[in-house]
């Protein structure tokens, strides 16, 4: 059921889901009007929309499922008897979580990390819409260069970004050996 709830938003497009945050977070939006009617704040909170907070919120909303699915996959493959054995050996629920489940979920976490990091590094529409042009990302910079017909500058930027992301992915794969642990 939780998984189904997670998948339902994916029936609409990325941009639509992003824009739907605006009436929620805006100055006269749902959150602010509710807070004012409850008397919690005297005037609307300004940093809800068009700020780094909004960008992070929208990105988390958009990309959590890319993290959930690989971890879900690895968790599903864990042998139940391992957990039973740990419990029979006298492990507390926290110990089971920390010493059995978490190490076995590491490959899924690594795959999800690769997804999320590459997606965030390449994201420009979220940053543009949710920060209102007040925050910048590399992809947004490239998009601006391309709209100014500075294709070679954008290409050079893209090569640098590609190298950086490849380095990041290489570092992640160095930390967690996906093939060995999967």
């Amino acid at each position, binding site marked *: 059921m939780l998984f189904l709830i997670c998948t339902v938003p994916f029936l609409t497009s990325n941009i639509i889901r992003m824009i739907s945050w605006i009436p929620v977070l805006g100055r006269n939006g749902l959150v602010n009007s509710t807070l004012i009617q409850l008397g919690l704040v005297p005037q609307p909170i300004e940093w809800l929309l068009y700020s780094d907070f909004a960008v992070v919120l929208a990105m988390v909303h958009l990309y*959590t499922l890319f*993290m959930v699915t690989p*971890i879900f996959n690895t968790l599903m493959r*864990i042998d139940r008897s391992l957990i039973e054995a740990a*419990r029979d050996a006298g492990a507390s629920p926290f110990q089971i979580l920390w010493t059995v489940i978490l190490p076995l979920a590491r490959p899924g976490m690594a795959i999800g*990390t690769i997804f999320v990091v590459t997606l*965030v590094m390449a994201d420009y529409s979220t940053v543009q819409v949710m920060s209102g042009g007040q925050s910048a990302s590399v992809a947004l910079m490239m998009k601006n260069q391309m709209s100014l017909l500075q294709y070679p500058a954008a290409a050079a930027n893209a090569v640098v970004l590609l190298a950086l992301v490849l380095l990041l992915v290489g570092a992640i794969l160095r930390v967690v050996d996906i093939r060995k642990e999967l």
Partner: protein
Amino acid sequence: MTVADQITVTGSSKPRRRPLSLARVASYLQALPLAVILGFFLLLPILFLLVVSFWDYDFAGLYPGFITLNYEDVLGSWVTWKTYLNTLKFAAIVWGITLFAGFWIAYFSPFTSGPRRSRRCCS
């Protein structure tokens, strides 16, 4: 494979060698569609990107050539570095939150080995 090669070489019998080479070609053929798709849609654009990144440009057009001015512009301006830092900051924050939330959502999903499921199996 090397052993098989040695056998065929020492045997030097042509009819025996043919099925081996055909099998080898068949495996390459099986890998061909993916290689073609990846090469056309992934490697070729990246190659173009690399080539174009060394070209010259002004407000009117692109001029094929080989200059490193673009890279000097990209790596030499503090705006770029700040933007990269900003992007990395977003990536780090979003990664932390999604990892935390993602693990617990997956953990408490009904199909995985959450606490509820495993308790039911043992009692």
